[in-house]
């Protein structure tokens, strides 16, 4: 009986047996494992590539000054609108990037690789950890210091915040070891972290913290004022090292008329000055929207420089423009003449022209976009065809050598140790590149009344004042300005009225580039019935109109005078979000929030 049944059962069951290799052990094959990542140099490289997430974004550099004291924008940031920005209106803070770095530092060990190799990548990791923490300290002041990838049961999860000086000493420690361990001396592509980049960054960090402690000694940095000078010295030393290593020089290849702008609108940023860069490449599909956000009537914030800031550009002979009698009632066409040559490389002025289908056409400030008349061209290229969408392929420098010079100058100015030689190598060199002829080799001795009254009433040291002038002009629109105001404790400048160029009289047309064709017509009341083609008619009546003239029918253009922008000292630090506080009340809230 069974002899008949069994083969029959087998005949039926044979189909099922086709799948008899039923091993329930499956391993992932499309992802890699710890051995491969931490056992080879290629793996370490692969992992450290992810740290670039800590760098500011392209927009963080190029449009990073949208919230700053020298730009008028279409609608003011909520940050400076009383009652709008609150701990409940903001999201949680992110710590993912830190965990990623700490996990790497803990895992980068083993016998397979030379210590020198492991140290190099640890150096890279610590550079980025410093960057992560510096950003957190800038935003929040005290923050929890965490140096390992946390476990869910780790008590550090629910710990309070560490004092800023504790955290900052770790940051500087990380940077020092980055400088020591990173083995890359130079990088022709300027896209990786070299010793120079780490040093340059250290000068930025130490300068920030040094000046912050100095100027906030009676506030957020109470008790830390005495440590300011040591930090400033570190800033100066780090900057000096970059200079001594002599891998970089100021770029002057385009002459005084073009060098400055070529740093920002070249396909490949000039190598001599660029330390770290966002390389843009059409073939790689990596482009930015510089032209779009700086020329569009609708995209971007309509960033427009304030007259107060444009006034700080020196005359070509090196003397203050604001010493000129009647400087504040000069028409736009006149006031821009004979100035620091960076002005013509920063805004549309004079006979600035753009390229339309291969033909150069006059391009005066366009009031479809600009709010004040001072329309930035720093990050744009002149060809119209780049104006819409993310189409720009000009490189965006993240660090450049000029900042290192300014860091040295400011640190030494604050320390009171600047010499004429220092001046010549730093501010003097920058001014010389901009075509300025006077005051290049001697320390300034005159306090500029305009700078002091309009910007820094607390500063009576002419060197510090001039360094700050220089920093503002050289580094505008590179994403550093707001933090400069924070460390100088001049947040109140954020509430500065938004003024544009001087309009001698309403109800008449202006030829902004003096090419014989009128460009714009500011009117009060109603627009003229007969209008000239090509002229933009702009209502400056005030009231429900956003634009007005300071003197009613003449005077400086004004923008959004009816919006209250106010500074409150609590804004020097961001609030801890209500979400984070609810999860861990030990964090505590920042003062004033």
């Amino acid at each position, binding site marked *: 009986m069974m002899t008949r*049944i069994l083969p*029959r*059962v*087998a*005949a*039926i*069951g*044979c*189909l*099922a047996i*086709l799948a008899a290799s*039923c091993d*329930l*052990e*499956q391993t*992932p094959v*499309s992802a*890699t494992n*710890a051995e491969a*990542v931490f056992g080879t140099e290629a793996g370490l490289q692969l*992992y450290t*590539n*992810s740290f*670039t997430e800590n760098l500011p974004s392209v927009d963080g550099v190029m449009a990073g000054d949208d919230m700053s004291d020298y730009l008028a924008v279409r609608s003011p940031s909520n940050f400076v*609108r009383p009652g709008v920005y609150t701990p*409940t*209106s903001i999201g*949680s*803070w*992110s*710590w*993912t990037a830190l*965990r*990623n770095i700490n996990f790497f530092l803990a895992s980068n060990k083993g016998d397979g690789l030379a210590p020198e190799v492991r140290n190099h990548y640890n150096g890279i990791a610590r550079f980025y950890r410093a960057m992560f923490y510096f950003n957190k300290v800038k935003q929040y002041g005290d923050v929890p210091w965490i140096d390992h*990838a*946390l476990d*869910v049961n780790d008590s550090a*999860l629910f710990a309070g915040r560490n004092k800023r000086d504790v955290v900052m000493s770790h940051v500087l420690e990380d940077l020092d070891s980055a400088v020591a361990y990173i083995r890359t001396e130079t*990088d022709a592509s300027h*896209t990786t972290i070299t010793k120079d980049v780490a040093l340059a960054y250290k000068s930025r960090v130490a300068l920030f913290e040094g000046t912050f402690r100095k100027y906030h000694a009676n506030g957020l940095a109470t008790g830390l004022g005495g440590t300011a000078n040591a930090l400033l010295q570190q800033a100066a030393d780090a900057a000096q090292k970059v200079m001594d290593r002599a891998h970089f020089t100021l770029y002057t290849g385009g002459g005084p008329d073009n060098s400055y702008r070529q740093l920002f609108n070249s396909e490949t940023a000039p190598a001599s000055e660029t330390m770290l860069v*966002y390389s843009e*490449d059409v*073939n*790689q*599909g*990596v482009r930015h929207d510089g032209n779009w956000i700086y020329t569009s009537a*609708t*995209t971007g914030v309509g960033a427009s420089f304030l007259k107060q800031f444009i006034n700080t550009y020196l005359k070509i002979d090196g003397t203050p423009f604001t010493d000129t009698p009647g400087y504040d009632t000069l028409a736009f066409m006149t006031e821009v003449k004979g100035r620091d040559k960076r002005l013509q490389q920063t805004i549309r002025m004079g006979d600035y022209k753009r390229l339309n289908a291969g033909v150069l056409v006059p391009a005066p400030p366009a009031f479809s976009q600009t709010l004040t008349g001072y329309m930035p061209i720093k990050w744009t290229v002149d060809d119209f065809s780049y104006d*819409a*969408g*993310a*189409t720009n392929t000009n490189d965006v420098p993240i660090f450049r050598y000029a900042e290192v010079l300014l860091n040295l100058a400011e640190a030494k100015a604050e320390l009171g140790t600047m010499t004429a030689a220092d001046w010549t190598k730093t501010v003097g060199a920058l001014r010389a590149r901009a075509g300025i002829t006077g005051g290049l080799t001697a320390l300034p001795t005159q306090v500029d009344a305009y700078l002091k009254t309009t910007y820094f009433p607390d500063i009576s040291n002419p060197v510090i004042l001039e360094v700050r002038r220089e920093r503002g002009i050289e580094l505008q629109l590179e994403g550093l300005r707001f933090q400069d105001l924070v460390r100088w404790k001049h947040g109140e400048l954020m509430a500065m009225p938004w003024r544009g160029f001087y309009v001698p009289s309403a109800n008449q047309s202006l030829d902004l580039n003096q090419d014989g064709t009128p460009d714009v017509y500011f009117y009060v009341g109603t627009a003229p019935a007969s209008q000239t*083609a090509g002229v933009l008619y702009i209502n400056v009546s005030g009231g429900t*109109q*956003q634009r007005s003239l300071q003197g009613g029918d003449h005077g400086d253009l004004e923008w959004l005078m*009816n919006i209250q922008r106010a500074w409150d000292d609590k804004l020097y630090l961001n609030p801890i979000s209500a*979400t984070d506080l*609810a*999860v*861990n009340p030990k964090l505590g809230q920042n003062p004033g929030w």
Partner: protein
Amino acid sequence: MRTLRLLIPGLTLLLALSARNAHAQQGRISGTVTDHQASMPIPSAQVRVQGLNVTAITDEQGRFVLNNVPAGTATVVAQRLGYVMGQSQVTVAGGGAATVSFQLTRAPLALDQVVTIGYGTADRRNLTSAVEQVNGEELATRPVANLTQGLEGMLPNVNIRPMDGKPIQSPVINIRGMTSIGTGGSALVLVDGVEGDPASINPNDVESITVLKDASSAAVYGARGAFGVLLITTKRPKANQLLINYGMTYGLKQPTAVPDFVTDGYTYAKMFAQAFQDWQGFAAQNFNKTMVFNQAFLDSLKARSAAGMPSSVQVGADGNYVYYGNTDWMKLLYKDRVPSVDQNFSVARATDNAQFMVSGRYLGQDGLFRYNSDDFTQKNLRANGAIQMASWLNVRSSFDYSNRKYHNPLNVGEGGGVWRNLEDNTQPLSALYNPDGTLTASAAYSVGDLAYGKNGIDYDRDVYRSTTGAVGDFFGKRLQITSDFTFQKQTDNNQQRRVPVPYSTRPGTVAYLGAATNDLQNDDQNTNYIATNLYGEYNTTLANKHSVRAMAGVNYEEHTWDRLLAQRNGLIFPDASDLNLALGTASTITGGYERWNVLGSFTRLNYSYDDRYLLEFTGRYDGSSKFPQDQRFAFFPSVSGAWRVSQEPFWKVSPKLVNDLRLRASWGTMGNGNVGAYQFQQTFGISQSGMIVNGTKPNQTRAPAVLPNGLTWETAATTNVGLDFDMLDNRLTFSGDVYTRKTTNMYTAALTPPAVFGAAPPRGNYADLATKGWELSLGWQDGFQLARKPATYGIRVSLSDNHANILKYNNPNGLLSDYRVGQQIGETWGFVTEGLFKDSADVASHANQSYLSNGCCGYKAGDLKFKDLNGDGKIDPGQSTLANHGDLQIIGNTTPRYAFAVNLNGGWRGLSISSFFQGVGKQQWHPSTEADYFWGQYNRPYDLIPTWQLKPGVMWTPDNPNQDAFLPRLLGYSANGSNRSVGAVQTKYMMNIAYVRLKNLQVGYDLPTKFLSRLGSRQATVYVSAENLWTYSPLYKYVKDVDVESISAGSDLILTSGTSGDGLNYPMMKTFVTGLKLTF
């Protein structure tokens, strides 16, 4: 090898045996089949000799002839859909003839008496667990793009939310409500016993659909059947007759609702200006990204409107186009109606020793989009056959092929679905084309991209599937052994093209939108699936009273997925469709691979005493590669029992009144292994950096996800009690169940850690949930004489409900943002709206509402006023915890409750009519912040304005200072965030989205026989069928021009994550078809 050695003698034997009974003596049996109540013949009934492959189908007069019946006593069975199976013993002499007549009684619920269950079938009245079945005929004539969409409402507590009307949309099938907040889980769908996708099935091939709802019925499927199983059984040939079926439909589809927007440019611009100014405190500069705005422009619009000037596009002083349009964008987006064609055929025959059937179908549906049409086709081909190789061995095989193609247009401007782009970037003022024929900037973001017609994804899916199996009978059929092996290969080839869209803002210049996206992408994914089953069932009856059935088997399944995605930029020309023509250096090549396998053995033991007491035990021992070795295997048992009260000797109730009465109860546990394949293993994923380093975009990896703190099976334990009865001569039937399903050890986050943790929290088996519910279905079916002809009618009502509560969850602080113990799933916390502020004095005397932003300038008359529940003088959510929830309270629940369906049908003289209503009795919805069809300019001032908002009295305005108006003072952005006055979840906008929908209405007519003979046809039916014909919902009190099911669903799920705004998705479709069915 051992297998082979066994196999060869087995096959030899099989050949020897197959010749055995070839020439025995034979006779024939003839007779009629009639309806017991209406005394009319039953055509198309199947008559067969039990245990033999001798079958016949009755003709119009109910007559049949069975030839080649072996001499002796045979059991003849007559079956027809909708009737209780008839059975009779007939003795036939060799070479002789016998007659037999069947009078069939109506079956309860128009259901088959034989119900498909896991690894077998059962008599409906012998079920001990919660099982329900519908006949496939009900779906075959429904004009739905795919079968999943047609299942909504068909079976009580089989819950399907369509989400939207896109033809390739396959909504999740849920059985009995919330499954797991951990790994989730939906119904396991099996096609002929092996996992399959209902969307790839030809609805005409479906014989029946069965749902196994409780643990007891689904337990044999183990790990993947934890939350119920849907069994789709396909048709097999039945009769020894060549049957050729042909069917075709021609239909028209159109959206059930198209939002009606203000098209008058001046009205739009005026409201925009006000909405913007009142929120921001300063005048607008531009309509989002595409058009500039200033007071002068508004003034000229006003003047033009007053003068009745037509739409026009002009060139302004700055050389740019100025648009004075009144464009109806929805009209440009959609066609008015789209045609669809469906053709299907089948050829089938069953002889004594073999059955074979071939079927096919083509469905073609034109796209709804007027430009870049989203055409859809679906093709199916299927063949199945079985051969009785020996008296004891039946070998069967089936092969299926299906192909689905769909073209989904894309918007390269901002990506995502066209609906959101239309809202955010396109104004009625603008136009599709400039006077010189170029696209406008507004258009380029939305409909213009479609008109350009080059951007889209072509979805192409092939599914090949083959099942080979054998059934062997042993010991006089008491033991039956079945095996099958299935392989299925699904290939998905999705090809995406994105090229910049040219547009123009001034004459003579062309700009490009989406300039960064100029690429082709081929995404090829293969899913290989093999499944094999081997099981045997032993049946015996002892002393005529003790019936025992034992089944045991093993099951193995292996699922392998891999992907090759290649993308490259730099198309040489915008129509390029092959990667060879992409010449850029930015290329992405992505792989992907996943494999999991499960191995299970299962058993089911049934015992029945005298057909009165039924007991069943089911167990499954399951193993899954998704769990670490020490947790890999688990055992899940269940028991169930039934008491057929009506079979008791003491039951003296007349069968005329009560035919059958049963009580059922079951309890069982199931494992849910629905976790990712490699959760317990540390992996480092590879991705490409967006930054150029040293000339290339390098690859990168990063810290792996935090490993779980242990990982094991989630367990779903279901307790089920049921009652069934058939009454009044089987005309009234009832089936009802009450259940509790506890899902324990759900795989959830340990605890939401502080953000400094820096990663998603590790998960573990931490949480418990209980889902409770009930379902019932009630049917009535009867016939009567109308004008001396029999008429039939029937009604079936089903009703179901469920709700779920969290029993255990790590949320010690009771954060409302997370699950918490006691929480009812779907419960919504919000503020209580008191009405609108009367004036500034009202604002001043009321609690401080500044927590909820109302824009620049605070609260004014006409703004929303919230109740200060805790009386602390300010409106806020406290700490958003259970202990301190400020002015929040539970204001509703979004879980659909009381789902119902009603089927009505009637037939008379070949004429038939049926209707299917379906709906939800209770459900609430709070519009999400980007729900533009609801909020209009309250969301973003440049959004389109729904016309219903402008109906008199709906919106508070200074002219309509009604404190009870439905909408407050118009403030742009006030609904654009849940911490803003209008966007805050609140009682006023908890919308009642209960609804009832006439899902289907059909009228059919069977052509009289005299016409048929001319056609050479046996049967012919012409019919019209309409889908989604009518809907009512309380939501429509205000919002009439949206579909209640799609407005409450998220945005386009094929292209977005669904979070870009409720209702911004493909519309639900209303369909009318005329069809013809022919049988030869």
